[in-house]
Structures are given as C-alpha cells and as structure tokens.
C-alpha cells in the first residue's frame, strides 16, 4: 500500500513522519502512548493540550502533525509480518492491556521502525523492593504525571541522562539526596567541553540541569554507585560506595544513606522486537543501517535509539533521513537530505564519544550476592545462572532460559536479558531480544479475525506521485 508506516512517536518517528509527509506521501504514525513525543519529549499527561517541545529538526517551531499524517495513538504494534512486496504491522488500539482494544493491520512497502530504547537497570541486592525505579520511570512520572517517586531520592547509574532525571525530581518537589555516577563526572567535560564533546548541542542543556542541582545543593559523586537497597516492604535506606575503574566496590567506602526511593539507569537497551521480527540484521546489539537508514531488509528503515544510543537530536536527524528514504521508495521525488545526513554523522561521533565515556564495566557483577534476584519476573537468583553454566554447560540463550528460568516471565527478558547473558558469559547482547510477539495481547484479541486490508500493491506504489515542494 502506498503509504509510509512509522512505528514509534518519539523524536525519530516524528521526524520520519514529517519528512515523508513533506514529500507528499501519506503517513501512518503508530505510537503506544496517548500523546506524541516518546520518552524524550515526555508530555504532561494531565494537560489537555499537546505541548511538544520544539523538535530538533525544526528548532524554530512546535511540532504539529502534518495533514497527511494519520497519528494512531494508544496503539501497540505487536507483530510485523513479511508479505509479498512489503510488511504488515499488526496493532491493537485502545486502553493499554485491555481486552476491548480494536485490531488494525497496516500494510506498507516502506516501514520505518523508531521503537526507541529503555533504561538498562543493573541488579543489586534489594533492587526488587518497591521504591527502586529506573531513572526513566522517575522521569516519566515526574514529567508525565507530575508526581515524585519519593521524598528522598538517590539517583544512580551512569551517563548524562541522570542529570535531567535528578532535575525533574527536584522540579516535582523531591529531595534528591545524591547523584551517584559510576564513571567519571559528566560535569568534568561539561564545564570545559573538549575533544569529541566540544560543540555538542546538548552541553548547554546539561549545564542548565547541573545548575539546578547545584542550586538545590544536590551532591554529584563520580565513581560511586548504589550497591544495595534496604527495607522491609519498601526502600528505607541504601548503601552507596566508591567504585574502582572496573566498578568493583572499594572496600571501606560503603555509606548508609536514608532514602525512600532510588532511581537507577545504566544506559539504554534498544527495543528490537519488531526489527528482529522483520529480520533486520544487528551489529553489536543494534540494528545495522546504511546511509539512508535502510536496514538489511528491503523496505524497512530504522531510526533513533534502535540503531545506537545517541539522544534526541541524532534520533530526529536519523528519522528525517529515514522518512525521506521511505517516501522515495514509494516513488516520491526526493533529493538526498544532505543536511540531515550531516547531522547524523555529527550525532554519531558524539554518540561514540558518549558510549566510550559511559560504559558499563564488568565489576557490577561483584555487587550481587548468590541470592540476588537477576530475573525479577520469575525471581531467579544469580546462583541459578551460574549453576546452569557450571553444571550443565549451557551455551545459548534458549537453553539458559529453560534451565535457569530467567527471562521466562511476562517481560520476556527485557529487563534481565542483557544482565543474564553477561553473567552466563554469552557475548551476544541481543541474545534474549527475539520476541515475535512484540508486546503481550489477550488470547481473545489474538483470536479475533483481523480486519481485512488491501494487500501491498507493489505496482501502484511504484508509480511516482511525489509532489516536490
């Protein structure tokens, strides 16, 4: 069918929809949230209006949905199927996880996947207590719902994202007790950006967050991590300690800190389900793309955090490139988007520098005790993973799951997969990522007859109809 289908309404998906629409192509923009923006431009869910921050692609104005973009909100894309000449995206639309949702199927010859990423959380003793959140949860709740995850919050993890999270928490009235950065301080290069960080457009934004924290007297400590959370029914205090270069705790540096909440984030994990269902090739755990954001599969493009963690600006630039390429595939007249492509190149340089500055070091494995839960859903402890490897010589993700139980619960290894794979010595970061049903649906929803839809019409779609503006 001659329209571009974009999955994901964050910076990458919005830019892709806008770019394709600007070439006169019909676009369907599918997003799980009620409002566009994704995790980055997290909108205030309580406000009746759309208040999107200016998109990076067009810093001079707010993003409004172009006329030829059909935005489908509250839409869970649960499967992608290859069909002759294209792909079919199966979607449930309506209240989250409700059996009353309506099924829709979108066929397309040009599919743009912009499904984003979620926080990586590393396990530590007590991390399954209520009151331990991911940094993304603290951010989503503060920005989207206007609530703080706690009164006294410790923010921990690694990377510049911890700063806006801490700043949002302060904004909704929480006291941020401290920010624990496991690597070197962000503020180091923030005050005097050099090398690859020089000229990074986000530096100013981060400096503002750092300013907010400084004004509120929030201590920011490098080479420090939350090693344990304590409490009976929920978090009452945490243990914080200094780390060495490999992230092993430095003995004697442990401190008990009173807190009722912890927000942790150790970088991000891409949401690969739909890309893997479409059989896109991965490289180092991310979707491999060419200069036009094309994946290894004809007619499937990927943009944003799926292709590498690089933040909203890079995501929007990749989205624009993908949107133009998708429109071109449908026959629109499109010139190479040179400016967006150069923004992509610059963005990737920063992304590489960021990844190098904020790696996850293997010493985190020392934070775990034998009985520390690794898989939260099935409550599988580290011990069970080690035994699977030591006693049964498990060498692949499938058997590891079936022998240890890790990754068999409702989250299907989204949270524990990378951690379990590392603990078991499997070197594929995406070992657990294959989930043909990309998000659970009710059996009755699955049983429903799908609403018939015209097949992908390759011939019609190949006719050029682009309107060059």
């Amino acid at each position, binding site marked *: 069918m001659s329209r571009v289908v974009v999955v994901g309404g964050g910076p990458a998906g919005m830019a892709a929809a806008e770019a394709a629409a600007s070439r006169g192509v019909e676009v369907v923009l599918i997003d*799980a949230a009620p409002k566009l923006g994704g995790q980055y431009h997290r909108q205030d869910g309580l406000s009746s209006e759309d208040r999107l921050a200016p998109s990076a692609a067009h810093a001079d104005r707010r993003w409004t949905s172009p006329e030829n973009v059909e935005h489908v909100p509250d839409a869970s894309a649960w499967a992608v199927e290859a069909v002759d000449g294209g792909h079919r995206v199966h979607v449930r639309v309506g209240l989250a996880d409700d059996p009353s949702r309506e099924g829709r199927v979108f066929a397309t010859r040009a599919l743009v996947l912009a499904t984003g990423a979620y*926080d990586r959380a590393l396990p530590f003793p007590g991390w399954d207590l209520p009151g331990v959140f991911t940094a993304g949860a603290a951010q989503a709740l503060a920005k989207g719902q206007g609530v703080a995850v706690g009164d006294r919050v410790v923010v921990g993890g690694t990377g510049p994202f911890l700063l806006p999270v801490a700043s949002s928490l302060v904004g909704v009235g929480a006291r941020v007790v401290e920010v624990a950065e496991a690597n070197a301080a962000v503020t180091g290069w923030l005050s005097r950006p050099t090398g690859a960080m020089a000229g990074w457009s986000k530096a100013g934004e981060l400096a503002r967050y750092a300013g907010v924290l400084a004004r509120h007297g929030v201590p920011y400590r490098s080479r420090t991590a939350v090693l344990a959370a304590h409490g009976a029914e929920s978090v009452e205090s945490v243990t914080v300690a200094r780390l060495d270069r490999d992230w092993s705790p430095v003995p004697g540096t442990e401190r008990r800190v009173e807190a009722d909440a912890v927000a942790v984030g150790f970088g991000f994990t891409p949401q690969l389900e739909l890309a893997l269902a479409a059989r896109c090739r991965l490289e180092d755990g991310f979707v491999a793309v060419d200069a036009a954001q094309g994946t290894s599969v004809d007619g499937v493009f990927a943009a944003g955090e799926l292709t590498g963690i690089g933040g909203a600006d890079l995501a929007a630039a990749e989205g624009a490139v993908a949107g133009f390429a998708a429109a071109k595939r449908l026959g629109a007249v499109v010139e190479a988007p040179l400016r967006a492509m150069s923004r992509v190149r610059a963005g990737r340089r920063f992304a590489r520098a960021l990844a190098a500055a904020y790696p996850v070091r293997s010493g985190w494995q020392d934070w775990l005790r034998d009985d520390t839960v690794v898989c939260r859903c099935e*409550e599988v402890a580290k011990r069970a993973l080690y035994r699977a490897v030591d006693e049964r010589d498990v060498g692949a993700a499938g058997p590891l799951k079936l022998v240890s139980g890790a990754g068999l619960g409702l*989250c299907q290894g989204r949270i524990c997969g990378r951690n379990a794979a590392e603990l078991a010595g499997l070197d594929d970061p995406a070992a657990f990522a294959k989930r043909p049903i990309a998000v659970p649906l009710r059996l009755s929803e699955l049983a429903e007859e799908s609403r018939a839809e015209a097949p992908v019409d390759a011939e019609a779609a190949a006719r050029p109809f682009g309107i060059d503006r």
Partner: protein
Amino acid sequence: MRVTWDGREVEARPGQTVAGVLIANGVRSWRTTRAEGRPRGLFCGIGVCFDCLVRVNGVPDVRACQRLVADGDDIRPQRGAELPS
C-alpha cells in the same frame, strides 16, 4: 473523576495513569510476586518490565504505568498470577 482502589474511592484526573494515581495516593506497592509473594510496584515506568501489574475492572495483568484511568475504574491489587473474572 472517581475511581476505586481496593474498594476505597480515590481522586483521579483525566490523563493520569493508574500508577500515577496510586503513587499520588501514597501507594507504592500493589502486586505480589507469584513465586515468593514479594511486594512490587512501579519499576520501569514505560511499559517494558511488567512489574506494575494491577487488576482493573476484573482484568489482571494490566500495566499500571501504561493504563490511563477512566471514570469508575475498579482498581485492585494483584496477588501472584490471577485469572480474569
């Protein structure tokens, strides 16, 4: 907007998620795990961890962080694995 939490009426506003309502009302945990009966609540906040499961209008396994409240919702804790009623 009125919804009930475990049979008790609580204040809610359009656009709030179930998790937003519960946390704003001081509820931090609304589920127990199937194997060990441990308390759980919100964790990832963006729909990927399935830790914040809650029962809404008789249907279990609803992600509280993703579900928007609707007037009259009957929201209840979920204990382990449950069947829809």
